[in-house]
């Protein structure tokens, strides 16, 4: 695929992106491998005095214990894996819907386009985070509902983006050539147009992934995400919303915070480099 070849070339000029992709590889691998191993014993609880978190020095563990006496270091791996899974799920499904709607809208144009885009406009007027919160409270907070509701209200941006891309592809000669040959529309879309949209999808997939991690973290921190029995980075960060924890128990919230910020920073750098590859005008060099 062209985009990856170009991306490798771009890495030579952009050291931020180079460092980011190496770090991301390390983070992703260690999280998934670590979580696979730790999954069986992360919820082992130690007895803690006065139901307070225990500092690393006092407990003799690397990152201390949380308020329930769980080893923070173990918890971190499982939490990061759960957060990444949710973010990947939301991003994947919202691209699936967005790509379908956007390509249909852009390829057929005319009335189909008009109707679909009005639906997208209307749908994006709803304050989606609020509605998602309400739906989560009413229907229960589990991983599938979380992914479902976030997907339902976040595919619109993707649809707009891919519609614009499909619109510009539609005017190109290769599409008209295919049409004059009598190729059915669906075949043109799948075989001719989609390969040309891969670049845009890949670049934006990465950027959307970062945004999804942010949304999951935000909702969980406010207490509308997953519960205590299902650790995620947002749930771990929820500790920091308590002023006492924020001031005195730094080891409870600093590690997940650093992990979230570093991961999102790296994902954004890589995503931006990918986007620059798809749009040569934006290059640094």
């Amino acid at each position, binding site marked *: 695929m062209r985009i990856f070849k170009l991306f490798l070339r771009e890495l030579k000029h952009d050291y931020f992106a180079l460092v980011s992709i190496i770090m991301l590889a390390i983070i992703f691998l260690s999280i998934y491998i670590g979580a696979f191993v730790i999954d069986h014993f992360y919820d082992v609880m130690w007895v803690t005095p006065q139901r307070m978190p225990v500092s690393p020095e006092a407990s003799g563990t690397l990152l201390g214990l949380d308020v329930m006496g769980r080893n923070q270091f173990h918890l971190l791996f499982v939490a990061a894996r759960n957060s990444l899974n949710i973010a990947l799920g939301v991003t994947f499904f919202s691209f699936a819907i967005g790509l379908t709607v956007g390509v249909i809208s852009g390829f057929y144009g005319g009335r189909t386009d008009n109707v679909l885009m009005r639906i997208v406009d209307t749908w994006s007027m709803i304050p989606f985070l609020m509605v998602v919160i309400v739906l989560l409270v009413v229907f229960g907070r589990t991983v599938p509902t979380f992914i479902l509701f976030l997907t339902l209200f976040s595919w619109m941006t993707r649809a707009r983006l891919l519609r614009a891309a499909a619109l510009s592809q539609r005017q190109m000669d290769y599409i008209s050539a295919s049409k004059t040959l009598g190729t059915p529309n669906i075949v043109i879309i799948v075989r001719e147009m989609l390969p040309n949209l891969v670049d845009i999808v890949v670049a934006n997939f990465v950027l959307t992934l970062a945004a999804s991690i942010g949304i999951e*973290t935000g909702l969980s921190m406010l207490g509308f995400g997953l519960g205590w029995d299902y650790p995620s980075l947002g749930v771990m960060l929820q500790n920091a919303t308590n002023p006492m924890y924020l001031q005195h128990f730094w080891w409870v919230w600093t590690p997940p915070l650093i992990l979230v910020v570093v991961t999102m920073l790296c994902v954004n750098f890589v995503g931006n480099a990918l986007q620059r590859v798809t749009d040569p005008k934006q290059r640094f060099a």
Partner: protein
Amino acid sequence: MWKMILRRVLILFPQLFIISVITFILATVMPGDALSGLVDPSVSREILELERERLGLNDPLPVRYVQWMRGIILEFDFGQSFTHRRPVTDIIGDRVFNTFLLSTAILVLTYIIAIPLGVLAGRYKGRIIDKIIMLYIFTALAMPTLVLCILMILFFAFNLGWFPSSGSVNAIVLAGGDAWEIFVSRLHHLVLPAFTGAILGTVGIVFMLRANIIDRTYSEYVTLARSKGVPTGVIFRRHILRNSLIPVAAGFGFAIAGLLMGQFFIESMFMYPGMGMLFVQSVNARDFAVVNAIIIIFSVLTALGMLLSDIFLMIVDPRIRVE
């Protein structure tokens, strides 16, 4: 042009209708009804059922929808709050001013910070200043809203003690101070949440402005102007900057929409008593009458913001009118 604006305004009505239907469905899905805030456990089930019948709560959905809409449009009646035991309209009325104040402050600060940064980054693309600005943008982008709130509180409120970490006005000042002192106290409480919101809001605008400027720099009309011998500064100001600012200015309505959406994160972290915090409190108290009212108000405001953006774009950008 007027025809296009009129057409755009007319689209608003079916959109508002669809939004109202969606929020109505949401309201029926939520537990509780108009009586849940008023009755106490001593009222028997039969009387409750009679009362329900009398109020029309057992009517078919379309009838109830019409009733509900009429209440909202004609009397501004969003029902009764279950926890506060007051009409929802009153409770929201108390908070509107704070939310308005905070969003205005965030919007103004966002544009004041974002436009110079975007212009500098686009003008000096690839230089050291561009790289510094992009590093700032990426760091801000990598911060989930609440994480940034926490860091701001920890650093400026707890460690340095420059600004209060919560509330919208000092209670002692509000009780005993004169108008000036109250004003200063409000401002003092506003600084931290407003800056936090602005830092997050700048990201998109700086990105867009920078990309636009770079795009225009390589356009044919700039090459033409350059070969004509127009000085670089004039080209930048007159040809590149003006065209690049149009989409940014038109994004105003979308900025409002995005702002409203993220408002409750900031308000609930800084304990700023606006509608966003009311929303979070009400969800936690399962006070769905208030929740639903806030969702409706925010959707309508978003719809109006987008309408404003589109109309503004039609007035400023002649290319859209021709279409």
